[in-house]
């Protein structure tokens, strides 16, 4: 799953949101690193709508302005959960390996010296 897709699905995970709220949420979730433009956002929304991962939750007029809110579908929730699980497994494994190598580094309590050839971060 591409990062913008993951971020959009995550932004919709807890509540339906409209276009500008999604741009703000994506920026917040990514700590300001990903700033979606309007064209990019609607490209991704159209694709996710086509894939059945999101749906239009409501079309309303707020203060005289058109506003369409989007929500995750069941398939979207499943896809996000699967991707989150995959990322969690990778992160856990990365942490495990880093912890192992840190323990072996000189100066650490319980250091076991240099890792054997072929071991460690393979």
């Amino acid at each position, binding site marked *: 799953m*591409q990062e913008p897709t993951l971020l959009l699905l995550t932004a919709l995970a807890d509540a339906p949101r409209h276009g500008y709220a999604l741009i703000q949420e994506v920026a917040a979730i990514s700590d300001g690193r990903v700033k979606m*433009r309007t064209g990019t956002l609607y490209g*991704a929304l159209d694709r996710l709508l086509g894939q059945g991962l999101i749906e239009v939750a409501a079309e309303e007029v707020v203060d005289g302005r058109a506003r369409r809110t989007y929500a995750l579908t069941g398939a979207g929730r499943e896809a996000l959960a699967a991707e989150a699980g995959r990322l969690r497994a990778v992160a856990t494994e990365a942490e495990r390996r880093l912890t192992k190598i840190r323990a072996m580094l000189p100066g650490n309590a319980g250091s076991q010296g240099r890792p054997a050839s072929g071991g460690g971060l393979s």
Partner: protein
Amino acid sequence: MTMPVIGAAPSVALRAALQLYPERYRRERGEELAEVFADTTAAGGRAAVAREVLGLAVYGLRVRLGLTGASAAGRLLALAAPMIAGAVVGATMVPWLATVDRTTRWLAWDDSLGNHVRAFAPPVAALLLAVAALLGRWTAVRATALVLGVIGLSQLGEAVFTSHFDLWWSGYIGMASLPFVAAALLLVAAPTDLLPRPTLRTAGLVLAAAVAGGLLEAAQNWDDTTFPLDRWWVVAMLVAPLLLTFAALRGRTVPTAVGMTALVLTGPGCVFNIWREAHGVSNLLPMAVPAAGLLVLVAVAVHRYGRRPAVAAVHRTA
């Protein structure tokens, strides 16, 4: 919500950008796009407004041309992008390496800066393109592919707009330069949100396509102006990839992407050589019309053959 900050100009620009969308899309989403645009540009300066307008305009063109991430054509182009990028690298480097001696003599005869740029710009751009493709930097891939495309276009322009126009010479230059123009356009047209991440699989695909592209270029022997084209080569180089693209009619994108990538490299050369061997359009037509008819029949057959499982699948799920 507030409107953009720099007066009427953004509204004019926004309206112009929205005009690029198909009427139906604009009717359904135009107001919503305008609202989000107003919010995103409310606190931004001219640069932010310009970026937003450009983004909206580009997506409008994509929607109009059917090249979004949601379309089959968009998915196909994104799938083919690493192959096209690799093929361009191979197709640039192989002829350049094969003619290094001649290039060296040419530079010894005229060592002007312009000649050095002509000699070294294509391989340098191709190598940069290779690195960018391997790293998954698709903006850089597109930029370098565009450089190669512009070089190809300028070579073709020189051939066409010369004082003594020669169709044969223009075709000859065209068969070497048009693949790079086509490749650049296809890479630019691929939807950004579907372009692959820099994984080992993508890198392998780029490298394999570079080797295949180099081999295809070498097999075409385009640098030899005297060789008579063997008709079986046309089958291999033109008809075979063309038939692969028919897989799209059955919804199979991988063979279609392979066929399309091969056609980018072989299409112009094959068409030129067929025209050359036929000695003119009048001789070509009696051969080309039945061949085109046969291909259409094959396409229709593939389409009908391919629809049956889909219908069956619908019945199964109903």
